[in-house]
C-alpha cells in the first residue's frame, strides 16, 4: 500500500514561503511526476514527503497515518537521489544491503533480497565492485536497488536521470517504467524535463513557484491545459502564443496553437510569413517562421522542401486552438 495525502502542506525557509498551502492525493500504485521549471519547489515537496525537511504547516499522511513526527526511515519510503548518493567506500552488495543492515535483518534473508534486486536490475556481475568502478547508468541502478530491497510503500525519485547522457537517459526511463509495471508500487518522480513527465507518468503535477498549476494525465494536460503556463510547459516544441487583434478575433486575450497543429502551404493560408531557420530531423522538420504576429514554430513532415527565406502561409487547426483570458486562464 502506498497512499500519500498532502493536506494544506506548506513550507517556509525563514520568511520566504517556498510552498504555499497545497493539497494533493497520490493513489496506491500510481506513477506521479512533479514537473516544473527549476526553483519551482518540486524537489522541496519531495523532500517534505521523504521527511528530509520538516513541514511548516499542514499534514502529510502516508497510508492514512499522519507522518509529521516520523523520521525519514520510519515512513516506509525509499528515495533515489540525483547524485545517486551511493556509499563510495562500500561494494555494490554492501550498498544495496545497507538499509537491511540498518533494519537488523538476518544475513541469509538480506543476501536473498540483495541477490533478487541485483537480478532485477542486471547487477549480479557487479556486486563486488565499488561505485567508483561503475558507469553512470550502473550507479543509478545500484541506487534503485538500494531502494527496492526496502520494499517501500512508495519510491521517491529526485531527478534521477539528469546526470546521464541522452541515450542512456532514454534507456533508464524505459527501465524505470518497466520496474513500475513489475512492482506496481507507488512512485513519485521529480523532473524538470517534460518529456520524462509525459512518457512515464500516470498523473502529472505541474508546479510553479510552489503552487500546483494543474494535475492530470499526460494527455489531459496536453489537450486541455488549464492556463498559459501549463500550455507552454507541456509539449515539445513549445506552444505558440499570439496576442492582440488576432487573438481578439477569437474572443480571447491570447491564443495558443501547438506547432503540430499548424498546416503549412506555399500558396494560401491564414498567416503569411518567411521561413527563418528550418531544422531537418528526418522524421520531422521544425520551421521557425517570422510572421507579423511574431515568431511561430511549425512542425512539418520530414520531407518538406522548405528553406530559409521561403514565403509560406500558415493555417491553424481551429479545433486545436487554445484561448486564454487576460489572467492567462483557459477560456
Amino acid at each position: 500500500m502506498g497512499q500519500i495525502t498532502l493536506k494544506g502542506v506548506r513550507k517556509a525557509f525563514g520568511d520566504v514561503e517556498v510552498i504555499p498551502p497545497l493539497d494533493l492525493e497520490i493513489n496506491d500504485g500510481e506513477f506521479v511526476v512533479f514537473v516544473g521549471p527549476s526553483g519551482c519547489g518540486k524537489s522541496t515537496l519531495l523532500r517534505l514527503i521523504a521527511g528530509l525537511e520538516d513541514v511548516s504547516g499542514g499534514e502529510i499522511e502516508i497510508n492514512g497515518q499522519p507522518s509529521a513526527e516520523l523520521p525519514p526511515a520510519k515512513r516506509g519510503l525509499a528515495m533515489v537521489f540525483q547524485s545517486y548518493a551511493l556509499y563510495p567506500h562500500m561494494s555494490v552488495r554492501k550498498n544495496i544491503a545497507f538499509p537491511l543492515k540498518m533494519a537488523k535483518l538476518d544475513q541469509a534473508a538480506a543476501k536473498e533480497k540483495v541477490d533478487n534486486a541485483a537480478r532485477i536490475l542486471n547487477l549480479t556481475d557487479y556486486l563486488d565492485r565499488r561505485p567508483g568502478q561503475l558507469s553512470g547508468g550502473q550507479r543509478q541502478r545500484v541506487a534503485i536497488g538500494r531502494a527496492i530491497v526496502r520494499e517501500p510503500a512508495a519510491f521517491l525519485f529526485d531527478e534521477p536521470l539528469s546526470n546521464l547522457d541522452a541515450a542512456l537517459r532514454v534507456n533508464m526511463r524505459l527501465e524505470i517504467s518497466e520496474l513500475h509495471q513489475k512492482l506496481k508500487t507507488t512512485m513519485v518522480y521529480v523532473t524538470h524535463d517534460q518529456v520524462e513527465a509525459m512518457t512515464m507518468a500516470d498523473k502529472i503535477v505541474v508546479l510553479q513557484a510552489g503552487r500546483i498549476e494543474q494535475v492530470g494525465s499526460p494527455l489531459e494536460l496536453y489537450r486541455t491545459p488549464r492556463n498559459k503556463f501549463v500550455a507552454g510547459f507541456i509539449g515539445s516544441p513549445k506552444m505558440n502564443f499570439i496576442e492582440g487583434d488576432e487573438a481578439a478575433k477569437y474572443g480571447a486575450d491570447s491564443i495558443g496553437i501547438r506547432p503540430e497543429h499548424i498546416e503549412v502551404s506555399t500558396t494560401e493560408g491564414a498567416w503569411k510569413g518567411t521561413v527563418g531557420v528550418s531544422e531537418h530531423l528526418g522524421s520531422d522538420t521544425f520551421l521557425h517562421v517570422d510572421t507579423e504576429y511574431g515568431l511561430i514554430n511549425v512542425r512539418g513532415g520530414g520531407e518538406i522542401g522548405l528553406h530559409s527565406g521561403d514565403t509560406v502561409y500558415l493555417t491553424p487547426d481551429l479545433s486545436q486552438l487554445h484561448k486564454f483570458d487576460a489572467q492567462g486562464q483557459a477560456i
Partner: protein
Amino acid sequence: MARKISNRRRVIMTVIAWALAFVIFFPILWTIILSFKTEGNAIKAPWDVLTSAWTFDSYHVVQERSNYFRHFMNSVVISFGSTLLALVIAIPSAWAMAFVPGKRTKDVLMWMLSTKMMPAVGVLVPIYLMFRDWGLLDTRTGLVIVLCLMNLPIVIWMLFTYFKEIPKDILEAARMDGATLGGEILYVLTPMAVPGIASTLLLNVILAWNEAFWTLNLTAAKAAPLTAFIAAYSSPEGLFYAKLSAASTLAIAPILILGWFSQKQLVRGLTFGAVK
C-alpha cells in the same frame, strides 16, 4: 600549452629550493651533530665542531642519568591519548557544524579559534589550582585532558573542512535507509572521511608530542614526557650542549620517523580543500 621553463631557470629554482630546505632543517641537523661531540668540542667555532672527534658519550650519560623509555611512553600516551579524545569530541561537533549549521556556526568556529590566540600562561594559575585540587598534577590523565582541550579547536576546524567536502546527499541517503544519527556518523561519514581524520590525527599527535608549556608546568617526575626529559638538561646545572642535543635528538627521533613515513598524508592534510 604547458608553460615552458628553461633549463637554467630550472637549475636556479632547484638550488634555491634545496638551500631553503637546508636552512629550515639546519637547527635539527646541528642538534644531531652536537649530540655526537664532547661537551668541550660542542661549544667551539662551527668549523672546529665539524672537524673534531665523534663520540657516543653524551648518549651514554643521558641514558644513565634518566629513564628515556619512561619519558617516551609518557609522550606516546599523552600525545595519542589527547588526540584520540579530541577526535571523539570533534567528530560529532564537526558533523553538526558542517551538516546542520545554525545562524551562529561561523561565529562559534571563529570563537573556538580565538581561544588559540590567548597566551596559555594566562590560564596557567587557575588550571594549576584546579589540577591540584582534583589530584591531576603530574598524572598522564591530567595531561591528556589539558592537551586535548588545547588542540580541540584545531581538530574541529580541520575535520570541519574535510566534512564540508562530503556530499550531503549521501548522509541523507543513509537517513532514508534507516541509519540513526550514530549509524550515519559511524558507518557512512567516518569511513568516507578516513584520509582527513588520519591527517588530523597525525598533525595533532605531532603538536601534542612537541607541546612543552603545559607538560613542563603540570608534571614533575611520574608523568613527565620527553619535553621534560630535554628540559632536565638545561638550566639547573648550566647548559650542557652536547647532552642537551643528545636528549633532544632522542626526543624528536620517534616523531621525525613517524612524520617521514606519513609525509604524503600530512601534506594532503594541510592542503586539503585548497582545490576542488
